[in-house]
Each structure stands twice: as structure tokens, then as C-alpha cells.
């Protein structure tokens, strides 16, 4: 059978992040966020170090499908070293991308772009957004503390 329709979802770069996740693990002295998708059991444990308005470091742990874990890996890679407002901006862009909306393409999205195909698989969108929601929550907690 042809894998064409599957290839829209599972791009090589996604599978690379899934099989070799970046920033896997946990940071000490950090903001900790635990989130899960109650309908499917995906789970992320995200640790962030935020200081001087910058996401200094990010690591994640968890279990889930290729899309959720690859997205978590890409997210940590993308926000590490970024000012908080830029990280949140990326999150908005990512959310627009998942909803199939026009998104701001003036910023180089790097590997994240590979997840754009997920928009065509409505059941899988929540897999891709889990890590980003966790990051938003963590950054929010930190800016209020």
C-alpha cells in the first residue's frame, strides 16, 4: 500500500525526535509542570528554568505517542534560550498551525514546521499541543511568582 497519506503526518524529522528525543530528563531547581491528556493517557513532566525573563533551560519526561513526544522534544529545543514573550509567541504560532489557521511565518520555526501536517488529523492535534500547553502554564506560573 502507499504510505502517502501517512507521510503527511509522520515526517522523518518527527520520527527522529521521537526516537532520539532532545532535552529528555528533568532539571533541578526549576518550575515543574505535569500535564496529561485524560482521554488518551499521554503524559508530560516538564521542567523549566526561567530567569531574567528568559527560558534558560528546558527538559521533559513522559510517555505518549510519536506525535506528543516529538512535539515535546521540538518544543524544548525551540524555547531554550528564548525570552519568555518569544516562547509564548511561538506557542501562539504553533496553536494557529494546529488549527489550520494562517500563521506568522516571519519567524524561522525550524523542526516545528514538520508538525504542520498534524492539522489534517483532528484526533491527533491534542497530542501535539500537550507540551506547548505545559510550557505556557510553566512560564505563566513563573512570571506570577
Amino acid at each position, binding site marked *: *500500500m502507499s*504510505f502517502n*497519506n*501517512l507521510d503527511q*503526518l*509522520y515526517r*522523518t524529522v518527527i*520520527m*527522529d525526535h521521537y*526516537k532520539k528525543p532532545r532535552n529528555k530528563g528533568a532539571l533541578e531547581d526549576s518550575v515543574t509542570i505535569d500535564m496529561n491528556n485524560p*482521554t*488518551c*493517557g*499521554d*503524559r508530560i513532566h516538564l521542567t523549566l528554568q526561567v530567569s531574567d525573563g528568559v527560558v534558560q533551560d528546558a527538559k521533559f519526561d513522559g*510517555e*505518549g*505517542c*510519536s*506525535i*506528543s513526544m516529538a512535539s515535546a522534544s521540538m518544543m524544548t529545543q525551540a524555547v531554550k534560550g528564548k525570552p519568555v514573550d518569544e516562547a509564548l509567541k511561538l506557542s501562539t504560532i504553533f496553536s494557529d498551525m494546529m488549527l489550520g489557521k494562517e500563521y506568522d511565518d516571519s519567524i524561522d520555526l525550524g523542526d516545528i514546521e514538520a508538525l504542520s501536517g498534524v492539522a489534517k*488529523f483532528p*484526533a*491527533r492535534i491534542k*497530542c501535539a499541543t500537550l507540551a506547548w500547553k505545559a510550557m505556557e502554564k510553566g512560564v505563566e506560573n513563573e512570571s506570577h511568582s
Partner: protein
Amino acid sequence: MISKDIRSYFPILNQEVNGNPLVYLDSAATSQKPVQVIEALKKYYEFDNSNVHRGVHTLGNRATESYEGAREKVRNFISAKSTQEIIFMRGTTTAINTVAQSYGGANVEEGDEIVITYMEHHSNIIPWQQLAKQKGAVLKYVDLEEDGTLSLEKVRATVTPRTKIVSIMYVSNVLGTMNPIKEIAQIAHENGAIMVVDGAQAAPHLRIDVQDLDCDFFAFSGHKMCGPTGIGVLYGKKELLEQMKPIEFGGEMIDFVGLYDSTWKELPWKFEGGTPIIAGAVGLAAAIDFLEEIGLDEIEKHEHKLAAYAMERMSTINGLTMYGPKDPEKRAGLVTFNLDDVHPHDVATVLDMSGIAVRAGHHCAQPLMKWLQVSATARASFYVYNSEEDIDRLVAGLNTAKEYFNDVF
């Protein structure tokens, strides 16, 4: 034997999904509806629709006759003594919550025990957790055997004279295990407890005889047995239902309403506050006719046969783990599994692209997932309209998933 022609009664199955003929293997979540049920709903709304138990007019009488006729059909379907013991509700979840809040609210006290098992669906866990918290009661779990069955010895060791309620699923929606309800009910009764049965996965697939089981309550849903969503049944022994208070108050369930107090109608109506689920009951009656015509014994046989065939074919796939009893005779028509190195969501997406619908996730059984030491699984579940060819398509789809994830990347 169930003929393949049965499939032609299900209009929804005659379609392509993602360019392939649909193979629907998610009946444990909800079953598809035969044309007989769809037509019964249409006929009801086109000719008989009216409110029940109040109109003097002809349509009101017809609607009441259809609704109460459905109750008699359900009584016969589960071999209850009286239609007073058949209460229409939204589904299994509402039925179990009603028992927990009404019977449990009046009879469970601090330090009493409620016994369930590790294999229960959330709808047979959380109502009891809540009751236990409200009352300061103790919620106890019967551990499972390695093959996902229950041992009566362990049930006996868990149920004590302090136990007030034992509530157990008849058939597991994950493991497929068929539990020895009759024997467990006896153990419950010897200890002075009542026996509640979550029959959601049993009623669609095997003949139910509540008197033979000697259970005190039995809950099931219409939508898993070819009926519409939004209709289910709580069976309860009359002597227990009579003592119990309604938990929903309003129209339909009252006898006399004063300014400061009211009295309730007799059984079963005192538990059916508000305009009842009339069309749902009509649809459920049509579903029961449909299943009875095929024969529940035939359906059970068909599912054992499909489970055996699926387990045999799936065991040829390297790296595939199946959960639950190994003996197909001991299980209902579903197979829950995992494929090494491919997450169940990814398995389900690959299968969906081939037109095959399976469930992936925790199946509303998080404690059981923990017991199995997995975060999620995939599940293929079968019903009257499935055939060995559907299982062949599943096996081909699983091989595709393996090939795709292991070889392409």
C-alpha cells in the same frame, strides 16, 4: 451461525473511510445501529411522538404504550420478575451513580466496605470512591490473576461482614474477561452485602438472567447493543427499589405535590423524573427485537469464534502483546493489544488510514492500565456485523504499521 448478510442491515458500514471500505472494530465503545432501529426511531417521531402518562389524546396513548411496551421487552430480555424493576436511565453510568447515591447513601456508614476490582471501568469506580469519601467508608479492590481473571478465593478474602456493596463488571471492556457473577453474588450475600453488576459489556453479547445471577442491581446501556445513545437500564430487586429514595425530583415521578412536601409515584416511575427518554426506549426495544431474532446464544458463539480467530492470527505478528485470558472461551469478542515500539495512537492512526476503526487509549480504566503496567493500549472489538475477513484486514493493517514504523524510519 450468523450470516454475513447481517452486515447489510447496518447502513453506516457501507462506506469508504480514507479510500478503503470501512472495517468497524470499536463496538465495545459503541455499536452501530441496524436499519430496524433507525426506522423505529423515525416511525416514532413521524407518527407517535407525544409525552407519556398524561395526555388523554391518541398520540399520548400511543407514546405511552410504546414506552411501557419497551419496558416489558427489557424485562423479558434480562428475565426480571416485574416491569416495576426496570428503570429507564441515560446509561450505565447514571444507573450505577443512582445505586451509589440512593442505596449507598442510605445504607453505607462509616467504616463499612465497598468492594470492586482492578479491572473496573471508571463508571464503576468513581461513584464508589465518592460514596466512600462522603461516608468515611473503605473502598477495597480485589486483585486480579496474572491472566486478567478473578479468583473466587480472592473475592472471598476481600468481602467481609463489614462489606455493604460488591460492584463488579460482568465482562471487561479491556481484558474481555467474563466474570463469575453468580458465584460472586453468592459470596456477597453470605456476607450480608448486595451485588451490583456493571453489565455494559455483557448485555450486548450474552443472554442475561438477573434472577439466575441473583444480583441485586444490574446496569446496562442501549447504545452498545444496537440501540440509540442516551438510553440505559437500571434493574433492581423490587424490595430494594421500594425502600430507596429517588435522587432526581420533578415532573413525572410525583404522586401528590403540596406546598412543602410531596409524595412519589410507585415503581418504576419514582426514579424517572422529568419527561422520560421515550424515543430512546422505543429504539432500545427495536434493538432487543433485532438481537433476539439473531439469538443471544448465537451472538455469544459468533464472538468467541471471532476472538479465537483474532488471537490466533494476531499471535503470528512478532512483537504483538495481547492482554487478558488466553482461552477464547473465557472471553468476550474483543482483543486488547500493544505493538512493540509503536504507540497505540500511532497504531490507530495507521489503521484508520486503511479504513479500520479501533480504539486507542486507556479505555476508561486507568487503574487497570496501571495494573497492566502500560500507559495505553489498542483494542479491536467485534460484534454481529464483523467477520473473519475484517480480522484479516486488521492483521494486514497491523503489519503495515510495523513495516511503516520499523522500516520507513
